[in-house]
């Protein structure tokens, strides 16, 4: 197990190096002169020259890259032009909001998609199966920002069930004491049920939006993998031995069918982290996605770069986690490692 872990860790390194190189190149690809860009529109020639030296832009590219890596190692992502605040601080403050939303959406999606996929496979060809297929195709076709707006219209404007779809808490509730940064957990831990209720009702619509979006790949994969497993010899043997359907489907088939589904989670995360940006924009969610979008509009590049880098590192880490999980669940992978 440890050997596998070490081997997998080594495989992560080239990916991380690639990510750092790409984000570095993205800043250097900025249109025009980066020094003039960072100096701002009002700067004269001398000021631009000063900035150039200060940023090390007069040095060769490879030296600049070295400096960039050293800054990164110190956790320095530069300062935002518009607020002057360090990007790292802002991202650290906003990350829990994004993480809470993404995880909530993912869990919601798994809770719906996995049973739906199993039903689709077990009752293959029936109306349940067809529903499953329509849901899967419709889910990938729905633009996530559009689903979010539709949900806000129906549940806030028409039905009035949901609070105003802006932010993490309604205007009258203050944030719980920070422990994990997840409002749902923090409010429960400090015993503030009113805050919990408020946070949950704000989280519900954006969470459902993300869940609808990620429903499709998980349902599709669960169904396909259940179908393959149900047709296999060991399931036939289990059936022939007279085990009841429940045991066969849950203990025998489901546990084996879950392996490919876990592998697709990597792809699902890629979609989710991207969709997260759009959902945050729709629901004015104070996460790192909306931070990056605000910065994009004011052409403030340091936060965007910090955001892209953070997301990529998170994504690499998540993929690593999925691989480890896979090894824990499937002993065969452990043996190979």
């Amino acid at each position: 197990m440890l050997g596998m872990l070490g081997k997998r860790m080594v495989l992560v390194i080239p990916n991380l190096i690639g990510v750092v190189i790409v984000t570095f190149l993205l800043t250097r690809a900025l249109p025009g002169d980066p020094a003039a860009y960072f100096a701002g529109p009002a700067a004269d020639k001398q000021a631009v020259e000063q900035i150039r030296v200060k940023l090390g832009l007069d040095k060769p590219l490879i030296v600049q890259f070295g400096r960039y890596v050293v800054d990164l190692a110190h956790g320095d992502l530069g300062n935002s032009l518009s607020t002057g605040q360090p990007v790292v601080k802002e991202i650290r403050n906003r990350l829990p909001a994004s993480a809470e939303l993404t995880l909530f959406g993912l869990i919601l999606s798994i809770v719906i998609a996995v049973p739906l996929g199993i039903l689709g496979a077990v009752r293959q060809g029936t109306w349940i199966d067809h529903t499953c297929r329509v849901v899967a195709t419709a889910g990938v076709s729905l633009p996530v920002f559009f689903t979010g707006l539709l949900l806000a219209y129906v549940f806030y404007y028409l039905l009035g069930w949901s609070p105003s779809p802006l932010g993490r808490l309604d205007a009258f509730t203050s944030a719980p004491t920070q422990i994990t940064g997840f409002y749902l957990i923090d409010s429960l831990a400090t015993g503030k049920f009113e805050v919990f209720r408020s946070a949950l009702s704000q989280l519900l619509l954006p969470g459902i939006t993300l869940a609808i979006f990620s429903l499709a790949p998980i349902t599709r994969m669960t169904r396909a993998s259940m179908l393959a497993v149900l047709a296999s010899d060991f399931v036939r043997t289990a059936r022939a031995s007279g085990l009841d359907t429940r045991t066969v489907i849950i203990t025998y088939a489901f546990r084996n069918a879950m392996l490919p589904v876990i592998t697709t989670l990597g792809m699902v995360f890629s979609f989710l982290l991207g969709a997260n940006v759009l959902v945050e924009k729709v629901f004015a969610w104070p996460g790192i996605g909306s931070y990056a979008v605000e910065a994009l509009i004011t052409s403030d590049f340091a936060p965007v770069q910090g955001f892209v880098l953070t997301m990529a590192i998170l994504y690499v880490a998540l993929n690593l986690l999925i691989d480890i999980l896979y090894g824990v669940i499937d002993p065969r992978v452990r043996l190979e490692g």
Partner: protein
Amino acid sequence: MSENVSAMPKAAAAPAPASNSIFNHARYVVAENPVTGLAFGLFILIALCALIGPYVVPHDPLASDTTATLHAPSLKHWFGTDQLGRDIFSRVIVATRLDFIIAITSVLLVFAMGGLAGIASGYFGGWTDRIVGRISDTIMAFPLFVLAMGIVAALGNTVTNIVIATAIINFPLYVRVARAEANVRREAGFVMAARLSGNGEFRILLGHILPNIMPIMMVQISLTMGYAILNAAGLSFIGLGVRPPTPEWGIMVAEGAANIISGEWWIALFPGAALMLAVFTFNLLGDGLRDLVDPQRRT
């Protein structure tokens, strides 16, 4: 692969029955799965909107009319009007062309880059394969939409850069398919024959392998068209690329977003629905094409 080779002279001798059988097969697939037929119909409708839409719409998509702002859908304005009194129906139809062009050019661009890189990497193996593989791995290390945001932010906020960014994030998908297909064909009989008759490696690659994997690549193109449209619309929704007042579905949804919680649903709904329909069409069409070309991969 051997039956492929032996089938070729026959097909060359009698081209008419071959195309007829493809036609029959297509008819069979459409009959078997009427949804594919529907998707094809929708595709023609969308293509028509893109081609002649701007010439037949009832109103000027850019003309604002301060006396008719925020009107609900009516006989005069089928989809209602927006904050500036512009006719949403005309804007939705006119936007088809821009969204269509963005999707098609980005898909063709990635086909040229990823398809060729993939074939070369599958055919040559070795260093070519390693370099191409590393590039795709690096792209895949990012959440794709986030990478597209970063690219557009860095290269500059234009429609061209949206096309480039969309092409780059699809690169690994094309490489993977083209590489696998080229790899199984590198030792095939027809490739050997071409090599023995003195064709250079690049000639074999482009003249013999590429035409053979075209059907599968076409499926890939159709499947990624929907994703390309979604991606471009998502980027313009957050304010990248297309600028107002240009009619484009993503930006129109963004313009209507603020009004939706005060009840003016039509501003965002119609462009959003058009976007959804277009993506849905391409996804269904891609599935249908896959059934036609490669029945084994049917899900």
